């Protein structure tokens, strides 16, 4: 009983997040093919274009300039894979913020149009796989 409850709570949290805040991972997803700077926990930085990312924040970059933590040595890499857990922060283009917000609004409006009010739809959440399955794609695909 208890695990199920926490799973539901998790879903509810996801839903609440998706309602009005931007998830860091949706921002990252939207950053595909965009330039970015990644700093690792050890201070090394990687400048390149995002090829792909996953939910652990593992990423692949292409056309990369790597800098050591002192900032005095550079390497050029054609492509590299960075494990998400080693990342300190990512710096992404400012324009992405508006792009992601707009996309979220569009997805939400599309959800409203398809199944009536978003809020009343939330009341049925969790009772059946159908309502859950139909809701998620528009929310989480960026």
């Amino acid at each position, binding site marked *: 009983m208890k695990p199920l409850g926490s799973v539901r709570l998790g879903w509810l949290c996801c839903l609440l997040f998706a309602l009005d805040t931007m*998830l860091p991972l949706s921002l990252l997803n939207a950053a595909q093919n965009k330039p970015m700077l990644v700093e690792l*926990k050890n201070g090394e930085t990687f400048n390149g274009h995002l090829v792909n990312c996953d939910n652990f924040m593992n990423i692949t970059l292409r056309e990369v300039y790597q800098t050591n933590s002192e900032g005095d040595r550079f390497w050029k890499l054609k492509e590299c894979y960075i494990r998400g857990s080693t990342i300190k*922060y990512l710096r992404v283009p400012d324009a992405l913020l508006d792009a992601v917000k707009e996309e979220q609004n569009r997805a939400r409006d599309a959800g409203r149009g398809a199944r009536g009010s978003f809020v009343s739809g939330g009341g049925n959440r969790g009772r059946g796989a159908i309502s859950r399955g139909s809701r998620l794609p528009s929310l989480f695909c960026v």
Partner: protein
Amino acid sequence: MSSLQGYVDRRVLLILQDGRVIVGVMAGFDQKSNVVLSDSKERIYSIDEGVEEIPLGLYLVKGDMIVLIGELDDAVEQAVDLATIHAEPIPPIRY
């Protein structure tokens, strides 16, 4: 349940494990406390010069690295002239 929801769209100050201080508007966060900051700036403190602010733009900080998040008081922020503030930088965490 503790949440960062109350900080969304507010100006916040982050302190990272490496001692960096970053201010910005919290645009979003997730369950792992990863945080998106828009219009962010790094504040560099030093003893012999005033505080220097370096613009960073849109930033995604991993939750692992965050030590502290606090909301900034806009009135206080505007009343303070950072250039007159001299302070020791925060040292990085040592293990």
